[in-house]
């Protein structure tokens, strides 16, 4: 096995350095002795002479040794070790530079890594399976209430029959069930009724038993269940003989046939699976239960091909069943992408997030350049060292590589610190997202530092080292050694060329351009910390109310066709409301599509037929993001809100064919300015598919802004009537008199269950506590913004410091001579500062020009109002930073003694 021999030989040579060295010495000694013996024997000379001749024949023992050492492949390693050691020594020798450099690079890396990890999570289209990159979801889109547009069994059937290029097409739906074990203990769990193909797509082997098979889906098949690792562990205490045991789900007895391994959660993050036994033939069109559809592309099929097929089919279906399918489009998308929603629908947060995104893209380069300027200034003091080493035979490559390794040591320390920061940030984000979502994230989303992120960071570290180490070293080694040697000790070797000056100007400009928005975001948050709530936030309790659905195969299944189910749910809502209002502590009860303050955003467009031109015409997508809430007729009255103009909703507004809307004051101001909004028409234009249109809604009333959370004020909202039967689950909001609303929770559960035991309550919480999460998230983003803004400013200052310190070092003699000739300190200072001041001024000017487009891009719109205050303060801030940075080098310049400066001549 030659390669094994080779590897062993290499290993010994490379890593058992001592052994290799002594072997070499022993071997050469043996050779010389043998040769000496031979010469004594053959030629009869004395031993000393023979030894001399033997050595001569060998030819330069040390040279050969060096060649052997080099050949071992260790020379670069030894050189590297030396460079690393030198790099570490440099870190200790210049602590100021080290702290600024490491901190700056760490922040750059942390931002890059966090952003990379988060983006990777959102953008990644693969599931962690074999062929997980081919799994897709098929969806319907449209405006038909919450459930009406979703894909249902009939769609599944159509897709199954007609789609080409997909395999293992299947569906699931989730139901809430009590898991009841043999001993009678009950735990509520979300059960996935899933086609057996879901397991085939995942291709994950069960830990125990088997997974679901197509046979289990037959209508008369015995009810079976597969459980996940968590349930196996927590409910069955890791019982290895669990397969074959009975498990009751709600009112049906099931047999456990398998246990899935840890980490398996397909389709979302499920732990209990039963077969999807639903059959489209059992339902009238339009009344079949909604399901989520998944499939896998066959090899060679593209997503676009399948997308085109489902789109075409949606058009065909709309023609065939106009009443049911009008305004409904279908789409195919990567499976993980079907879960990505933008949960952060808060304007100030969006400003902050966009800001971070903009900064993220340039931050590491800006930071790297800054640190490079600092390093270059230090390199200037090391021209002597470079010249001496060059004279002693070091190649340019060797010197540049030494500087590179030194910088790599610096950037690696920065990268490690940055990864630590990113880890903390990601963990924090993960907790917040979990809390905001109210449940666990899909199983494939792992907000943590993946190997890819670490690799990306390693790349960043090398990039930073190139900027910080190689560029200054290349500049420093350009010059003739003799020239430098001549100037040794004079302190004047290098110049800050055009490149560096441009970079300093650019960086001041970048700081000035970005800073106003950062200041604005921070100021808005600080100023809005304590708004007067216009609604009694601390008296409100919110919960989502839903009705447990029966699965197929149960006796009363037929009762629950979709329409009947909704009608029944509507009746139950009214009953719950009536029962609650009989309790003396309940002031009012109202229903809405989502909790107040948690409404989704839609693009809303104006009816331009009636005059005033649409203001946002330049946009590629029509309409502007606007929060859109579905609320019950009595919603505003229940919250004590009075209309500013027009009227509030009335019971008749929810009737079919009636389309009215109420908007808030910010919406009116944004869309109509001073004109009246009443009588104007608006409609949502859809999130992703432009062709889907909702009907026009006529604005009948204007209400005040109701900021639910501090960062909420100034957001445009549109309200449309909610039909009781449209939403399931529905959000119920109660106003409680006397005492903390949370104290009422047990009573709320009791009353609800008394109305109907199948009614379930989820996410019960005080509204202010629920919305706190959003406030916290906003706070976190703003704190991150503040850190970034401060570090950008700090680095700007460091750059200016480096520039001036560099100037002072280079012009030491000149300053000395001028002082000797009687120049006053003011003149000296002016001389030192002139160029720096000019550069800062130029940077500020460019930055101010850039600030406008940045403001536009980020959407802060601050130049209208706040700009008057913010812009001058940013300029002042920059000037102050420049002054502080200049103080130390200027002081140094003033202390230059003529005699001392001239002596070095």
């Amino acid at each position, binding site marked *: 096995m*030659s390669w094994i021999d*080779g590897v062993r030989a290499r290993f010994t040579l490379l890593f058992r350095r001592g052994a290799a060295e002594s*072997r070499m010495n022993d*071997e050469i000694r*043996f*050779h010389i002795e*043998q040769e000496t013996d031979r010469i004594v024997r053959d030629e009869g000379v004395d031993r000393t002479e023979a030894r001399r001749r033997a050595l001569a024949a060998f030819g330069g023992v040390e040279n*050969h040794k060096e060649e052997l050492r080099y*050949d071992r492949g260790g020379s670069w390693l030894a050189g590297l070790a030396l460079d690393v050691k030198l790099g570490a020594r440099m870190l200790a020798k210049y602590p100021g530079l080290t702290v600024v450099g490491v901190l700056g690079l760490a922040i750059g890396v942390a931002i890059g890594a966090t952003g990379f990890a988060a983006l990777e999570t959102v953008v990644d289209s693969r599931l962690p399976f074999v062929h997980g990159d081919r799994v897709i979801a098929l969806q319907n889109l449209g405006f038909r209430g919450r459930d009406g547009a979703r894909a249902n069994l009939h769609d599944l059937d159509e897709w199954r029959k007609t789609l080409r290029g997909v395999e293992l097409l299947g569906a699931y739906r989730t139901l809430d069930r009590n898991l009841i074990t043999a001993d009678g203990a009950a735990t509520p769990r979300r059960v996935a009724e899933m086609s057996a193909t879901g397991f085939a797509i995942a291709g994950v082997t069960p830990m125990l038993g088997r997974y679901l098979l197509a046979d289990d889906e037959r209508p008369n098949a015995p009810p079976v269940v597969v459980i996940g690792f968590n349930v196996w562990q927590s409910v069955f205490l890791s019982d290895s003989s669990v397969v074959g045991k009975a498990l009751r789900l709600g009112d049906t007895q099931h047999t456990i046939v398998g246990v899935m391994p840890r980490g398996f959660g397909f389709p979302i993050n499920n732990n209990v699976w039963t077969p999807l036994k639903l059959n489209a033939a059992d339902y009238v069109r339009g009344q079949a239960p909604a399901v989520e559809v998944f499939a896998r592309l066959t090899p060679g099929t593209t997503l676009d091909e399948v997308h085109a097929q489902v789109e075409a089919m949606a058009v065909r279906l709309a023609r065939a069943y106009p009443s049911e399918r009008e305004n409904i489009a279908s789409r195919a998308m990567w499976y993980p992408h079907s879960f990505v929603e933008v949960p952060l629908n808060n304007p100030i947060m969006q400003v902050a997030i966009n800001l971070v995104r903009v900064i993220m893209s340039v931050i590491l380069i800006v930071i790297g350049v800054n640190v490079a300027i600092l390093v270059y200034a230090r390199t200037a003091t090391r021209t002597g060292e470079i010249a001496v080493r060059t004279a002693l035979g070091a190649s340019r490559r060797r010197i540049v590589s030494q500087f590179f390794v030194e910088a790599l040591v610096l950037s690696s320390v920065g990268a490690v610190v940055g990864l630590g920061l990113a880890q903390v940030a990601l963990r924090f984000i993960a907790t917040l997202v979990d809390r905001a979502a109210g449940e666990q994230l899909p199983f494939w989303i792992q907000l943590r530092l993946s190997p890819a992120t670490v690799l990306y960071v390693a790349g960043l570290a090398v990039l930073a080292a190139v900027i910080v180490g190689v560029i200054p070293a290349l500049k420093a080694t350009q010059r003739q050694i003799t020239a430098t040697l001549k100037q040794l000790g004079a302190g004047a070797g290098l110049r800050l060329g055009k490149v560096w000056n441009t970079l300093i100007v650019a960086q001041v400009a970048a700081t000035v351009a970005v800073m106003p928005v950062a200041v604005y975001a921070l100021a808005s948050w600080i100023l809005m910390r304590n708004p007067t709530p216009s609604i009694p936030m601390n008296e409100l309790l919110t919960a989502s109310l839903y009705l447990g659905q029966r699965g197929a195969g149960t006796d009363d299944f037929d009762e629950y066709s979709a329409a009947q189910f909704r009608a029944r749910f509507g009746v139950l809502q009214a009953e719950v409301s009536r029962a609650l209002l009989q309790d003396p502590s309940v002031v009012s009860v109202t229903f809405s599509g989502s909790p107040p303050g948690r409404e989704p955003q839609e693009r809303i467009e104006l009816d331009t037929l009636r005059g005033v031109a649409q203001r946002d015409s330049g946009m590629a997508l029509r309409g502007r993001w606007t929060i859109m809430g579905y609320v019950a007729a009595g919603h505003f009255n229940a919250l004590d809100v009075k209309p500013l103009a027009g009227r509030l909703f009335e019971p008749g507004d929810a009737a079919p064919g009636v389309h009215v809307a109420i908007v808030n004051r910010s919406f009116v101001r944004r869309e109509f300015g001073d004109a009246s909004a009443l009588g104007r028409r608006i409609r949502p234009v859809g999130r992703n598919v432009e062709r889907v249109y909702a009907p026009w809604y006529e604005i009948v009333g204007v209400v005040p802004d109701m900021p639910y959370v501090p960062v909420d004020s100034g957001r445009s909202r549109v309200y449309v009537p909610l039909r009781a039967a449209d939403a399931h689950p529905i959000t119920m909001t109660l106003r409680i008199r006397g005492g903390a609303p949370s104290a009422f929770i047990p009573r709320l559960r009791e009353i609800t269950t008394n109305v109907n035991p199948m009614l379930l309550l989820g996410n019960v919480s005080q509204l202010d506590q629920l919305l706190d999460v959003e406030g916290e998230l906003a706070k976190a983003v703003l704190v991150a913004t503040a850190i970034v803004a401060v570090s950008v400013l700090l680095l700007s200052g460091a750059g200016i410091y480096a520039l001036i310190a560099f100037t002072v070092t280079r012009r030491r003699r000149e300053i000395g001579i001028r002082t000797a000739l009687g120049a006053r300190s003011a003149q000296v200072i002016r001389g030192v500062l002139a160029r720096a001041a000019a550069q800062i001024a130029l940077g500020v000017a460019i930055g101010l020009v850039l600030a406008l487009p940045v403001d536009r891009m980020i959407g802060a719109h601050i130049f209208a109002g706040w700009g008057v205050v913010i812009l001058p303060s940013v300029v002042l801030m920059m000037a102050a930073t420049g002054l502080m940075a200049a103080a130390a080098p200027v002081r140094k310049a003033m202390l230059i003694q003529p005699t001392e400066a001239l002596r070095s001549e």
Partner: protein
Amino acid sequence: MPRPTTDALRGSLDLLVLKTLSLEAMHGWGISQRIQQISKGALEVNQGSLYPALQRLEKLGLITSDWDTSDNNRRARYYKLTASGRRALGDELDGWRKFAAGLETVLRAT
């Protein structure tokens, strides 16, 4: 007698070493002596540059080495051919013969 230039020799040094070791396991000094003896002094290996060649061949897995005792009871490093070294020797020999024949043809023609 004209000595072969060092460059030409260095190119074929690997081949000479492999060939020598194919007869029996040998230490470095022995290899240099053996080459000289067999070539009747025509080829004189630069003794110092023999060792980098040995190290190179060992890294390639063509030879292995171990400590042993020499004829005069000294501790010496003995090199021996591995199986793949033997194969490599065959290939090298073929290559060399082709090269030499080619060279000879060209030299004769001009």
